[in-house]
């Protein structure tokens, strides 16, 4: 059946007969058309839906003598939401994720702008490759490398001592929140940069030219023509960066020490102490924040209203 004939049949032309329409409807409902989705559905179900359901179920159970007991209770959520330390850690995690996301976007945007506009086309791919090149090294190595930079004997303190600016090591960054912030921005900068680059590369720069021709300053031209079209990419990049930071474990643990604890560390502590219901409840709360963020930003992902 050709596309044209199918369309004619489906559209119900003047010579259409009832049995033929029924055939088309039957053909549309044919289960075989969904066969292609089966591998994805299995993958999604086994590796996402099933673990998520398990965590949600666990979060309502209790542990007795290091054994899970299927006894429905909301005490795990109460325990997390009523304990000051947990609430503060949760709030700090969300705040840290927001700040690091904004910082990553703020650093990535001018960088991508420079890469797209001022770097010759043939070198742009190389420039982009250099951004993702650190990804080729171990995540663990990249995090611990910052200990060698921010630590007491690290590069920064050694440099300050060598320049005679300080006698004792400055403990401003390592084992505290600023260090975690720097490392998180470092780790997730490429996510933001790649997303923004993909969008900037497709931007029609004549719009910017036209705005400047009409009397706008370069900054105003960027704000009024470029940024509205970048909204989708900015939101997507923000989501890409924000979500993994919420569950970050290693960077707060290695760089932040006891001051830099985030929700990921709490979850790990709960699980290592076999407090599965508490850990599950904390995980569900993180997932809830992510869901809320996605719902809030869903409207921003609507491409129909770019200049609204």
């Amino acid at each position, binding site marked *: 059946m050709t596309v044209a004939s199918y369309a004619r049949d489906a559209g119900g032309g003047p010579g259409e007969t009832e049995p033929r329409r029924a055939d088309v409807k039957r053909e549309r409902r044919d289960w075989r058309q969904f066969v292609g989705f089966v591998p994805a559905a299995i993958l999604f179900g086994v590796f996402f839906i099933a673990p998520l359901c398990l965590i949600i179920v666990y979060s309502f159970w209790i542990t007795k003598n290091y054994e899970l007991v299927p006894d429905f209770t909301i005490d795990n959520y109460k325990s997390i939401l009523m304990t000051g330390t947990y609430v503060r850690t949760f709030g700090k995690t969300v705040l840290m994720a927001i700040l690091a996301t904004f910082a990553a976007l703020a650093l990535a945007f001018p960088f991508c702008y*420079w890469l797209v506009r001022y770097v010759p086309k043939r070198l742009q791919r190389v420039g982009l490759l250099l951004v993702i090149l650190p990804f080729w090294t171990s995540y663990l190595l990249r995090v611990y490398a910052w200990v060698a930079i921010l630590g007491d004997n690290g590069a920064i303190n050694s440099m300050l001592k060598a320049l005679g600016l300080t006698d004792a090591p400055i403990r401003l960054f390592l084992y505290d929140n600023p260090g975690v912030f720097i490392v998180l921005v470092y780790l997730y900068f490429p996510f933001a940069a790649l997303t923004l680059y993909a969008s900037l590369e497709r931007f029609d*720069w004549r719009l910017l030219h036209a705005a400047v*021709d009409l009397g706008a300053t370069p900054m105003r031209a960027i704000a009024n023509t470029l940024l509205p079209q970048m909204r989708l990419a900015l939101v997507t990049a923000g989501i890409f960066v924000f979500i993994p930071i919420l569950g970050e474990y290693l960077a707060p643990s290695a760089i932040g020490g006891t001051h830099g604890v985030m929700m990921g560390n709490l979850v790990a502590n709960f699980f290592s102490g076999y407090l599965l219901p508490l850990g599950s409840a904390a995980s569900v709360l993180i997932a809830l924040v992510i869901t809320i963020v996605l719902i809030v930003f869903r409207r921003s992902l609507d491409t129909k209203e770019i200049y609204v």
Partner: protein
Amino acid sequence: MSDDLQAVNPRARLFRIILSFYGVGIYIFLFAPIAVMILLSFNSSRVVGFPWRGSPPTGIPGCRTTP
């Protein structure tokens, strides 16, 4: 396009230079940890950090082979 803008606004040239320095700075930010780790892998000190105690004669400390 960028040349046109520079003709319209002379500050565009300065903007471009600043952005170029910024771009290089970002690459330094991205590669500094890896460079430091490579450098320190040749340091014979027992702690991960400075001061530099020189490269051991047998190469990378963790990769020494015992006779």
